């Protein structure tokens, strides 16, 4: 095992008991020091993560209000009303709203940046969703697997010449018949039908059409 391989292994698990790791640190003082440093950092990470928990929080128990007959009747009426309104409302609008909400939640990532996600990390995230991307097809500055409609979906920020755009690869969504525009909460974007599901691209004061078409051409489905 070479030093850089060991340091990658230690970075993933400083307490690793892998015989190869243990043998290496016996003979390499630099790597032994690196491991000690990572172990000390883990102690600090643990202290930082172990935020105090208030006693009221620990006393939390599931509470469910007793169900009464009038509540059942009210619930039925509400169900009829909601079903009616849902029938009237467009499901695509609902999807657009959820996409915007999700994007807002990670809006900190949608900034101009020279950072680039390394190919392995990007591929791992895309592979979790059963997709891949053509090499060097996009300048991806942020990549994350995010929960959306019960699935882990790739959430990317792509740097374009006009600015950053957010891309959600939603392979599990019902495909649209045509491109659907999004204009909400200051975001402009599109939902594009894809070979599987849809791809959503959103930006703020950034033209997204070109970026959306490039992403559609770049993403490959397995």
């Amino acid at each position, binding site marked *: 095992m070479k030093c850089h391989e060991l340091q990658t292994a*230690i970075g*993933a698990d400083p307490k690793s008991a892998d015989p190869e790791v243990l043998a290496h640190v016996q003979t390499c003082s630099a790597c032994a020091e690196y491991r000690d440093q990572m172990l000390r950092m883990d102690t600090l990470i643990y*202290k930082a993560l172990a935020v105090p928990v208030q006693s009221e929080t620990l006393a939390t128990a599931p509470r469910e209000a007793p169900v009464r007959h009038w509540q059942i009747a009210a619930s039925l009426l509400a169900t009829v009303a909601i079903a009616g309104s849902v029938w009237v409302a467009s499901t695509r609008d609902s999807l657009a709203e959820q996409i915007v909400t999700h994007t807002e939640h990670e809006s900190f990532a949608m900034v101009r940046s020279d950072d680039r996600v390394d190919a392995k990390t990007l591929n*791992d995230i895309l592979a979790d969703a059963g997709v891949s991307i053509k090499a060097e097809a996009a300048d991806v500055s942020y990549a994350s697997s995010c929960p959306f409609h019960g699935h882990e979906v790739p959430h990317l920020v792509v740097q374009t010449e006009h600015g950053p755009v957010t891309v959600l690869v939603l392979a599990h969504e019902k495909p649209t018949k045509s491109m659907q525009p999004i204009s909400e909460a200051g975001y402009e974007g599109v939902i594009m039908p894809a070979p599987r599901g849809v791809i959503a691209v959103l930006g703020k004061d950034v033209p997204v059409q070109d970026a959306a078409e490039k992403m559609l051409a770049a993403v490959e489905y397995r």
Partner: protein
Amino acid sequence: MNSSADRSVQMTGNRTQAARQRFDTLCAPLKADLFRFLYWLCRNRSLAEDVMQETLLRAWKSIDSLSDEKAARSWLLTIARRELARTFERKRLPTVDLDSAAISEGDAFAVEDDHDVREMRRAIMQLDATHREPLVLQVMLGYSTEEIAEQLNISLPAVLTRLHRARHVLRKQILGDGAREGASE
């Protein structure tokens, strides 16, 4: 436990006292872990408390489905992840300003924490969720990398990469430019 029992009086249905006792025995020792797990996923104390309540309610409703009691923690954390995802999907939650969140949340814990811990907390808060979650599972909850892969339903190499990157980022944040570039990306 007593106060927990006192606040549980509104649980309904045909559950027996034995089921209630089983639920308390399994879940009460896990509440601190559950809260911290949720806190580090959403980085907001009050939201974590709300989702914890929803998680416990859903866990109570499905306690009969838990056949392997040794898997209680994993089962509870899975429910918590789903509840948090549901919350984000159905609510338009305000955007978190990471700097002010780190400061305000940090202030709440400042009395008993030293400077290094606060700085580390701020750095962890700025990690993206992909890297933060496996780190929480490993360092705070003691999960092995294989268990993390199973919990997050991702490959083992993906877990190793995320953990390595998380520590690499934290090391650079804490040590600044003085961090030796020994660890490869």
